[in-house]
Every structure is written in structure tokens, then in C-alpha cells.
């Protein structure tokens, strides 16, 4: 084993005796494009709704619930897909979230939420993760589409205008503080602030 490692290291650390420098540089460049492109393409595939609902846990629970909400069907036909709200759009944050998601693969393998009953039992915990994430980043995924600067309070109902021009404008509250359960059903809300 030690010998094998030494041979590998010697090969990598000694200069090439056969290929030209130009070939190595260009070859490395092309290989880099292929690997990087491939990596990003694979990443984007995992960032589609089809990928999310290819697991029955997602399709039968959260996706079915989303279908009845305004984020799925509405007058203008703009709709939010799973990654729009659940995956950060900035690259570094996205990679961090994808690394976290490896734990979700583990849960999938063990069937942690593979029935409706198990899912319901875990719903509060899962919801709390999302609330915490959106609270920490000031509801960034909401704000990717809903821009506070361009909100017309006169177009809102009185109650909405009061909250948005008050607590939200002052930064005391963020979207998720009030708008919980807008895209999926709520867990048991016992003890949650404002309930």
C-alpha cells in the first residue's frame, strides 16, 4: 500500500517525459471544461421539480399540497417550483445546501418518511428546519420574486398594508414570521409564536 502511494506520488511529481507542454495545458483546459460543465449540468438536474418529485415522499405529500395553493396555479400563470423556494440561488449557498441534502439521501435510504403517517410525524421537525433557514436569511427565497421596494400598499388589503408598511418595513419581522404554511399544510402549531 505504502509502495503504491509512493509510485503514484513519484509519477505526479516528476515532469512529463512524453507529452508536450502545449498538449498538457490545452488538454487540461478542455478536460476542465468537460468536468466543470458536467458537474454543473448534474447539479442543475438535481435542481428541477421533476427530480424532486421522482421520490414518492415528495410527490405524494408536499407536491400534492402545493397544487392547491396560489404558488402553483394563479391568474398570471407564474409559478414557483420546489427549488425556487427550497434551494438558495447563489452558487456558494447552493453548494452548501446540496451538501446538507446528502443527509436527506440517507433518510430516503432508511425510509424515514416513506409513509404518510411517518411524514406527518416528522412534519413539525421538517417545517422548523425551513422556518429557521428562511428566518436566518431574511426570507431570501421569498424575496427572489417578491421585492419589498416595489410593493404597492394601496393595492393590498388594509390588514396586509398595515403589516407590510409596519413590522416588515422596519425589519422587525420577515416574510416567514407570518406566512407559514403558504405552500404546504402546517404541522401542529402548538407553541409557535403568533399561534
Amino acid at each position, binding site marked *: 500500500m505504502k509502495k503504491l502511494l509512493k509510485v503514484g506520488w513519484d509519477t505526479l511529481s516528476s515532469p512529463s517525459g512524453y507529452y508536450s507542454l502545449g498538449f498538457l495545458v490545452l488538454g487540461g483546459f478542455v478536460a476542465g471544461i468537460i468536468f466543470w460543465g458536467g458537474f454543473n449540468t448534474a447539479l442543475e438536474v438535481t435542481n428541477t421539480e421533476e427530480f424532486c418529485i421522482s421520490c414518492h415522499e415528495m410527490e405524494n405529500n408536499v407536491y400534492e399540497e402545493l397544487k392547491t395553493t396560489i404558488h402553483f396555479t394563479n391568474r398570471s400563470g407564474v409559478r414557483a417550483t420546489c427549488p425556487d423556494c427550497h434551494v438558495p440561488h447563489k452558487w456558494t449557498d447552493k453548494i452548501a445546501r446540496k451538501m446538507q441534502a446528502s443527509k436527506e439521501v440517507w433518510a430516503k435510504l432508511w425510509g424515514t418518511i416513506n409513509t404518510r403517517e411517518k411524514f406527518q410525524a416528522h412534519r413539525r421537525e421538517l417545517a422548523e428546519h425551513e422556518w429557521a433557514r428562511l428566518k436566518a436569511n431574511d426570507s431570501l427565497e421569498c424575496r427572489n420574486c417578491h421585492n419589498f421596494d416595489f410593493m404597492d400598499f394601496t393595492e393590498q*388589503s388594509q390588514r396586509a398594508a398595515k403589516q407590510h408598511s409596519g413590522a416588515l418595513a422596519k425589519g422587525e419581522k420577515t416574510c416567514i414570521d407570518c406566512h407559514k404554511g403558504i405552500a404546504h399544510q*402546517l404541522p401542529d402549531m402548538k407553541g409557535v409564536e403568533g399561534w
Partner: protein
Amino acid sequence: MRSVIVRKAIKLVSSALIMSGILFSYVATGTEKEVATLRDTTKIAEQKEPNIIPKVINKDIRQGRNYPMQPPVIPHTIRSYEVNQYNNKCMSCHSRQLTEESQAPMVSVTHYMNRDGNFLAEISPRRYFCNQCHVPQLDAKPLVGNTFIDMHSLMKQKTSQDNQE
């Protein structure tokens, strides 16, 4: 003694049944011309163009009662408000401890009483499902008119008449 009561009861029930039968046939023929069904006079084999779906009134302005003891109507939209075994979204504004913050009308004290008149800390299970009685209103033309005048206005009218005489 007992058989007399039973006989009386049978008599009463049967006469009530006959009366309701007469009343029902009268109502059925009487309203046929005035109020049409959603199909109007569309023939059985044809499909009617559906009516336009009216919008929910969302003005947050409280409305008067339309009949005696009507539960107050909801003057705002309640789309996707969950009221189920886990949550009651209505109570996140209308419950006693949250009305100060929300400025929403407080749920009446009767809703905290059980059937024996004892007060509970939380809303009584028999009053839990708000939509059983309280409903939002649609911005639609009423199918039938309403001439309801509440007792308070009636009393006022009467006293003003009495004063004139």
C-alpha cells in the same frame, strides 16, 4: 295514562306530516317561477355555460346581520386558512390573547363554554370549526331579496310613531 299520551303524540305527528306535505307542495310550485336553479331552463341534454365566479369581498368592513341571530360574516378572504385537528388559523388573530395585536374582533365568550355552561381555557370543541357558521361573502347579486329589519330598528320606529300620536 301512557297510551293516551302515545295516541296524542301519534295524532300530532301525523297532522304535522300532512301539514308539511301541503306546505312543501305549495313552496315547490310557488317558487318555481321566481328562483331558477343554476341550470336555469337549459334542456337536459345540453350543457349550460357556467356563470362567472364572483370574487370574495375582502374589504375588512364589518357587515350587518341579514336575519335574526345571524353569525357575523367574514369580511375578508380565507383562502387556504387551515382549520383542522392540528391548527385553527382563524384563532391566530381572533383568539382572546391575540386580539390586542391583531385588532380583530374577539371570539365571543359563548365559544369558550361547553354544553353545560362551564368556561374552558381554550375554544370549545363544539365551536372549533369556525366555517360551520361564519362564512365569507361573495360580490354577487342576491338570488332573492331580503326585507329583514332588526329588532332594534323596529323598536325605534315604534317609539317614534308612538311619540307622534
